């Protein structure tokens, strides 16, 4: 039987579905569970955060008065910031919003956080632009505000890109693992050839079909060295490890076993994504622009999380990394048994 024919038959097994009745009933059950869990949670959290003001009664009057004045000023400030959060150019509280952003920028010292803050502000500019263009004001006024917003958006993006460059410069130089040159004795010649095939080309009956899925970062496929070969399959007695039960040490091992140079690539990926966001804004696709900004934010966040651990691992040298990877794979396989 030809591979394509077999694959085509397998594709048809997509017709196996649960009954519509089960799907609908299960959906209702799930919704009930989600919302009943949510309301219970809300009640518990409310109970925990209730403040007790009993101690106020014992304060002398002048101290109590001073405390109340400070609370009113702070409360007023906080409320005006909250009210300003959704304001757009032309509204009275917009200046408060900008002042708040500048303040946040000034009191943030970490480069990664500054970059992410910059993206948040760029995100705000893009949202404001969308809202301004939807307003029913005079065309001349709208155009002027929109132009100013576009200028500000470009500024924020440029600043964010600069910061990403700084993050890259400071990140440790991560040397990509040299691919293992030894061929595993268990791999046949055909299987070795399979390793060279691009992901989308391998025995796919859906040639030309876009491979969808929730992707983060570049969709470009990076070839990995083979660390292990598929061994005899585990029996059904494989240990069940819920994702939530992963311990910190297992997490660190799992991350240590990553061979891709993640931190600099992801930071560089964020810069590319920002370019795309800018291009999308020029074409007035604001929803896509906002999505790209969120994507860039995630990349910077991931770069920040991984680079610390990667640096620690690489400090011990390449051979030590390979050792850790082997131990991590063995640990994982032992956990599976």
């Amino acid at each position, binding site marked *: 039987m030809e591979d394509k024919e077999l694959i085509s038959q397998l594709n048809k097994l*997509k*017709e196996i*579905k649960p009954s519509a009745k089960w799907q609908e009933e299960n959906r209702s059950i799930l919704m009930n*569970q989600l919302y009943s869990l949510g309301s219970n949670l809300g009640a518990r959290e409310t109970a925990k955060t209730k403040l007790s003001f009993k101690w106020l009664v014992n304060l002398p009057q002048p101290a109590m008065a001073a405390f109340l004045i400070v609370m009113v000023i702070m409360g007023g400030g906080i409320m005006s910031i909250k009210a300003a959060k959704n304001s757009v150019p032309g509204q009275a509280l917009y200046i408060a919003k900008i002042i708040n952003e500048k303040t946040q920028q000034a009191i943030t010292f970490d480069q990664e956080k500054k970059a992410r803050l910059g993206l948040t502000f760029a995100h705000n500019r893009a949202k404001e632009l969308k809202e301004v263009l939807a307003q029913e004001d005079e065309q001349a006024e709208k155009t002027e505000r929109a132009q100013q917003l576009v200028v500000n958006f470009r500024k924020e993006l440029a600043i964010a890109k600069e910061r990403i460059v700084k993050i890259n410069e400071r990140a440790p130089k991560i040397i990509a693992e040299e691919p293992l040159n030894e061929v595993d004795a268990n791999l046949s010649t055909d299987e070795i050839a399979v390793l060279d095939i691009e*992901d989308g080309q391998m025995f796919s009956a859906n040639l030309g079909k876009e491979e969808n899925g929730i992707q983060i970062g570049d969709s470009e496929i990076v070839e990995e060295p083979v660390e292990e070969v598929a061994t005899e399959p585990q029996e059904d007695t494989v240990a069940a*490890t819920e*994702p*939530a039960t992963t311990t910190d040490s297992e997490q660190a091992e799992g991350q240590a076993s990553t061979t891709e140079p993640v931190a600099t690539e992801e930071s560089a990926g964020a810069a590319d994504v920002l370019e795309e966001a800018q291009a999308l804004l020029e074409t007035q696709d604001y929803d896509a622009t906002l999505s790209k900004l969120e*994507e860039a934010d995630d990349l910077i966040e991931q770069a920040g999380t991984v680079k610390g651990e990667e640096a620690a691992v690489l400090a011990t040298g390449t051979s030590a990394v390979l050792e850790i990877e082997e131990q991590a794979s063995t640990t994982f396989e032992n956990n599976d048994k």
Partner: protein
Amino acid sequence: MPQNIKDKQVFNKLKKKDKDAFILVYDAYANSIYRFIYFKVGSKEEAEDIASQVFLKTWDYIRNNNLKDYKTLKSLLYKVARNTVIDHYRKQSRKTESSLDAGIDDINNVNIVDPAQDIISEISTKADHEMLVLRMRDLKDEYREAIVLRYINELNIKEIAQVLDKSRGNVRVLIYRALKALKELAEDEERE
């Protein structure tokens, strides 16, 4: 808007524990998760029970964790599904002796074809499908899993690697071996 941007927006909302976003996830993935489980347990009723548990467990995980360890929602869902099936087998083995033939009778009784189809094509399609499903049962669990993920649920290599916690190279070799084993089963049957 492209599908992957929509998926990304949903995933971002899930990180903020948005319940409505999770219902969208259920609508999008209920069928494929059911199918994945069905090929593992071989029984429609069990697959439905386990699939229900998977979504509840996934929501529970999302509520209590920040999803940083997962790059995609698919990998989380499939991992929870795999673990739930394993738990199910453990409970079953405690209750009764395990049977290698468990579930095969169920396959024969399952209507895997839409009854609305034309009767003749239904019979022929059903026969082909049943043969293929039976052959799949004869495969090693690892191979069957790889085939279901790749050719039936149509995950890409990167996604399968995340679900199975293997490298992409290993996944490609695994799929190659799985397909080869399935072909050999088909050829052995034709010879008989």
